[in-house]
């Protein structure tokens, strides 16, 4: 965490355009040369309900949301329920202001729309403002918007006020609005932007506070992307042209991006009757020679267990995407959690034969999605990408050059008709698609419609040509061959120049923070804070969940005295996986868990580490939970 940063929070009602306004604002700041990172908080409601987006802006690379924030723009909630008619949700109208005060840093700025919000409805508002040295600007943004356009344009007025107070050049906003808005609404929005900006410049002391946007410059062109964008683009660049799915938050984002883009590049997208069908369609398309994917979130993924097992048994390559959300059952649909790790590793009957990656950043999401397809088609095995609403929904700037790669449409281990002529066939003319003794356990496949390639794919145990068989010799030969792929894939991953595990901090550090998936950036920031405070800490973000990177994690754990495992679930699933895979370290690993619906903030980890590992105390009153190492 640096002091030289703006963390801007725009709060309002779900359905009031908070997401699009904040996205445009973030992009404008990125274009101006700054690094940005967004964090979304929204309810599972159609319209209304308190929502906010936070944009962290810095001259340095931003990897995480910050601790608290320093600039609040509180807008009205157009769809707030009338508090008089039901007190269950409390006074929703005031929430954009009242719900956001706790995390506002000392010396922070509050801008609120006095046309819709009345601060006097908040208990002790003035006292809190004084105690925290907050700087409050109440402006009638609604009237400003109404005067030039429509009421919903008050978002733009708020952006104009922000620019004036934080020292942001409105040209960046103007350029972006010109790109993003249709002409009809562009004119009034520009008028509102300028009027708000000038009003504040003229009538307020904009230097009464020191929350200012930093200065920055990029040395190469940047793009603003989410993890969902990165997964979708990774799929496209790896030659995937078939997706089947059923809507479910938060997986819907990847599904939507591909449904919208596939027609432009000759791909096929299918919204189908349920997730069983969705995964089965991916299997069917892949079987017929197309690179195919499906995906869902926890509940929908539960329905995919059968087709997933079928893909394993028939060695049909597919990629499945699992966007975790807080469970169990319907859980909290719009809240992030990492509690589907075991669900994804072990669902479906029999011995799991799949690959699971949990990327930690937007770039990793792109890279590992591509790797998932490559491995799936090369080794004829289902590959899964496990992520969550946090990584899926957070936007951050990434160098555009990261995506400047060659496409790879290769279908992997597939034979052509010419190659099939020389391939082994059974006496009856069937191609021996499941041969016992083959390198890395991979027996190349043929595709329906190829001359001389016919075989039977079946979920039953089967002979080399695919006929159902239950003899012990064949069973063991086929099982061993399929399982052999795990070792081959692990060896392949270990040989990669850019491995999937991410190290941060000094090699010689005394303590380790171990995490997986989307918490990686936050953990790295916590390491930086702890090191600044004089602690000897480093971190390892693990992405390979199956096959597990045993050597790398062992080496990391051997190098530290103690390690704290950070994960967003209640049962320490990643720690359990690590102990299972390594067969030891029970006394070395303790857990810091968070499962209240919000991702870790760096301070959760910093305080958690100091309290538990350094002082040896239990956590009191924090939002996180500590589970000590065995024997402690």
């Amino acid at each position, binding site marked *: 965490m640096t002091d030289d940063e703006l963390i801007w929070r725009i709060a309002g009602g779900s359905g009031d355009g908070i997401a699009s306004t904040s996205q445009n604002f973030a992009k404008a700041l990125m274009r101006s040369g700054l690094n940005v990172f967004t964090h979304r908080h929204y309810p599972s409601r159609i319209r209304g309900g308190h929502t906010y987006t936070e944009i962290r802006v810095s001259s340095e690379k931003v990897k995480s949301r910050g601790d608290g924030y320093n600039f609040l723009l509180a807008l009205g909630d157009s769809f707030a329920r009338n508090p008089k008619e039901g007190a269950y949700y409390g006074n929703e109208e005031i929430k954009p202001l009242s719900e956001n005060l706790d995390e506002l840093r000392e010396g922070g700025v509050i801008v609120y729309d006095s046309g819709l919000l009345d601060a006097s409805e908040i208990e002790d508002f003035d006292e809190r403002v004084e105690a925290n040295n907050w700087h409050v600007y109440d402006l009638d943004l609604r009237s400003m918007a109404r005067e030039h356009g429509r009421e919903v344009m008050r978002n733009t007025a708020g952006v104009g006020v922000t620019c004036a107070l934080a020292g942001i050049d409105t040209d960046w906003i103007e350029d972006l609005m010109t790109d993003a808005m249709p002409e009809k609404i562009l004119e009034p929005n520009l008028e509102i932007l300028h009027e708000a900006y000038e009003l504040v410049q003229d009538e307020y002391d904009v230097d009464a506070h020191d929350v200012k946007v930093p200065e920055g410059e990029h040395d190469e062109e940047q793009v603003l992307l989410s993890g969902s964008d990165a997964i979708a683009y990774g799929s496209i660049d790896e030659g995937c042209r*078939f997706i089947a799915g059923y809507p479910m938050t938060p997986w819907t984002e990847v599904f939507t991006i591909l449904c919208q883009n596939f027609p432009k590049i000759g791909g096929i997208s299918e919204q189908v009757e349920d997730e069983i*069908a969705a995964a089965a369609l991916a299997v*069917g398309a892949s079987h017929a020679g197309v690179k195919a994917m499906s995906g869902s979130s926890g509940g929908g993924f539960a329905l995919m267990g059968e087709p997933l097992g079928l893909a394993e048994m028939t060695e049909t390559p597919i990629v499945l995407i699992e966007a975790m959300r807080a469970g169990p059952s319907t859980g909290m649909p719009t809240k992030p959690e990492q509690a589907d790790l075991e669900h994804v590793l072990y669902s479906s009957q029999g011995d799991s034969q799949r690959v699971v990656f949990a990327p930690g950043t937007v770039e990793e999401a792109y890279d590992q999605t591509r790797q998932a397809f490559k491995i799936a088609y090369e080794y004829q095995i289902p590959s899964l990408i496990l992520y969550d609403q946090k990584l899926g929904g957070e936007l951050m700037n990434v160098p555009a050059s990261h995506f400047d*790669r060659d496409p790879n449409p290769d279908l992997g281990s597939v034979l052509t008709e010419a190659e099939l002529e020389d391939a082994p066939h059974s*006496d009856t003319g069937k191609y021996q698609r499941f041969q016992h003794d083959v390198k890395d356990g991979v027996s190349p496949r043929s595709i329906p419609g190829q001359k001389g390639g016919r075989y039977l794919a079946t*979920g039953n145990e089967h002979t080399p040509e695919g006929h159902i068989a239950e003899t012990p010799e064949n069973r063991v030969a086929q099982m061993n061959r399929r399982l052999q792929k795990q070792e081959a894939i692990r060896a392949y991953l270990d040989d990669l120049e850019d491995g999937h595990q991410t190290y941060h901090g000094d090699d010689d550090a005394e303590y380790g923070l171990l995490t997986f998936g989307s918490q990686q950036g936050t953990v790295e920031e916590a390491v930086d804070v702890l090191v600044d405070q004089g602690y000897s800490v480093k971190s390892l973000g693990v992405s390979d969940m199956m096959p597990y990177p045993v050597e790398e994690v062992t080496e990391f754990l051997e190098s530290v005295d103690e390690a704290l495992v950070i994960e967003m679930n209640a049962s320490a699933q990643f720690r359990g996986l690590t102990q299972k895979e390594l067969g030891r370290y029970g006394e070395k690993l303790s857990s810091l868990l968070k499962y209240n619906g919000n991702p870790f903030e760096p301070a959760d980890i910093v305080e958690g580490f100091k309290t538990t590992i350094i002082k040896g105390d239990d956590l009191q009153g924090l939002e996180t939970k500590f589970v000590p190492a065995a024997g402690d």
Partner: protein
Amino acid sequence: MSAFNAIGDGRDVDQNEFTPGLEPQPTWCPGCGDFGVLKALKGASAELGRTPDEILLTTGIGCSGKLNSYFESYGFHTLHGRSLPIARAAKLANPGLEVVAAGGDGDGYGIGGNHFMHTARENHDMTYIVFNNEIFGLTKGQTSPTSPKGHKSKTQPSGSAKDPIRPLSLALTSGASYVARTAAVNPNQAKEIIIEAMEHDGFAHIDFLTQCPTWNKDARQYVPYIDVQDSDDYDFDVNDRREAAAMMAEVEDALHEGTVLTGRFYVDEDRPSYQQEKRAIGEIPEEPLAERYFDDSYEWERSADHFLDKHK
């Protein structure tokens, strides 16, 4: 140049080509109706000049699922109830394939009922054969979705309290554009109907009555049967949805009253198939998608060129 030269081969095909060498003797019980489906499918495929390498036969789980083992072609013996989503994706990926899906009444009308409804609704260009023996055979005789009301079995000891599914009506309501019923005891009609179904451009549903001599001994053997197209007693327009619906209701009632009525009950040649509909709105490429992966000259699109600008 195609990577799939079995498709549209157009050579003369002998129906014995569809008999696999490895497991030529089916393990179905003597007298099982499933033999009738196998024979009719072999005959129809040969008569249409389809070769084993251009047919993709997908099956579910059950006695009917063994069809894959006894019919020589590309085969995918899938999961219980899931032959349809796998079949229709394969057809989308490579429309030149002759795609036939098959399963039992529990498979298609029970556990796979949702897929049946939606595949019919979407009118995928494929043939779906349901082996309807009104019983679960492979699991040894439990009551199935088509078992008559009052049917007693180990899992329905007091007799089923449920009315059976009306498969033909369900297919029609869902959107199938070809709906027929045939019976294993009527091999000539069965072959003709399978030929029509394979030639039909859309979802062709065949409810195929397959007597089970082992677990459904009490049930009728589906003889004598009446072909409604050959009989003067039944007069309805097979192209008219309302008349077809009325006829189907009569046929479904009649089965449980002892009269086996077979034939074509609904044929809609005008409705475009799903593949045609999707191509019309630009959501299926002109060339089969599967061919692209074998086409070395194809310039694969990159996200950096097509989609990254809006993130700048």
